[in-house]
């Protein structure tokens, strides 16, 4: 039996409050990035990885704010799992750069493996619990990212073999992969009206 209750829109005060909170999260992320980048000697792969990590964590935090402040009549669905995946991805990108300052590298790597296993479980659960449209968005994201990356990788590899460009590290390639995947995810989601 349906409830016959319309979604109750947020009040103006709630909308303004939410906007202020989201702007605060954005400002905090921007400040954090500026602090991290003030060391101009940082190599570009690290700068890219930090940018991706901050973007992923910011998306996760903003999604959490939206998820837990929207009307209770709207089911939370896969939102919690999506937030967990974003936050774990962001943390895993930061750990190889900043954790070794305080923790032994092998311990850091063990932690990364553990987090990656947790994120993999979360991703599998997300796929199993998602409805057909969300699964299609995930599949389209993977397809877009795969074709963009394999095309770029082939061109780069050919140029490198011909001695036209310098070699870049696996860490740099990982940062590029994350950036392309994030863009592909935005494109695939926007096509379905998911913002």
């Amino acid at each position, binding site marked *: 039996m*349906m*409830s*016959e*209750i*319309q*979604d109750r829109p947020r009040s103006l005060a709630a909308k303004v409050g939410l906007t202020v909170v989201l702007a605060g999260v954005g400002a905090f992320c921007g400040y954090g990035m500026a602090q991290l980048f003030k060391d101009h000697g940082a190599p570009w792969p690290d700068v890219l990885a930090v940018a991706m990590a901050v973007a992923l964590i910011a998306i996760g935090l903003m999604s959490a704010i939206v998820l837990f402040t929207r009307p209770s*009549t*709207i*089911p939370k*669905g*896969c939102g919690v799992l999506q937030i967990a995946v974003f936050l774990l991805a962001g943390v895993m990108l930061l750990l190889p750069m900043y954790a070794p300052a305080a923790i032994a590298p092998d311990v850091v790597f063990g932690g990364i493996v553990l987090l990656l296993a947790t994120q993999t479980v979360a991703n599998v659960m997300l796929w199993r619990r998602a*409805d*057909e*449209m*969300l699964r*299609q968005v995930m599949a389209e994201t993977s397809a877009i990212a795969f074709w963009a990356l394999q095309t770029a990788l082939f061109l780069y590899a050919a140029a490198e073999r011909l001695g036209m460009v310098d070699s870049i590290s696996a860490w740099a390639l990982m940062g590029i992969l994350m950036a392309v995947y994030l863009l592909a995810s935005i494109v695939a989601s926007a*096509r*379905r*009206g*998911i913002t």
Partner: protein
Amino acid sequence: MNNRLKVLRAERNWSQADLAAALGVSRQTVNALETGRYDPSLPLAFKIARVFEQPIESIFSDSGA
């Protein structure tokens, strides 16, 4: 593909969340269906028809027809 989901839902005074719960999909999926950004699979189309107690062809129409 065109559909009459929004009209049928409004006639019953259901929210998108209500319809999403009845169909077992997310509210975003109902919104994407109503705005024509997503065409449902055949099983979901049959489920929609059952929920509204109407034949599929009275809910969905080929935009090229």
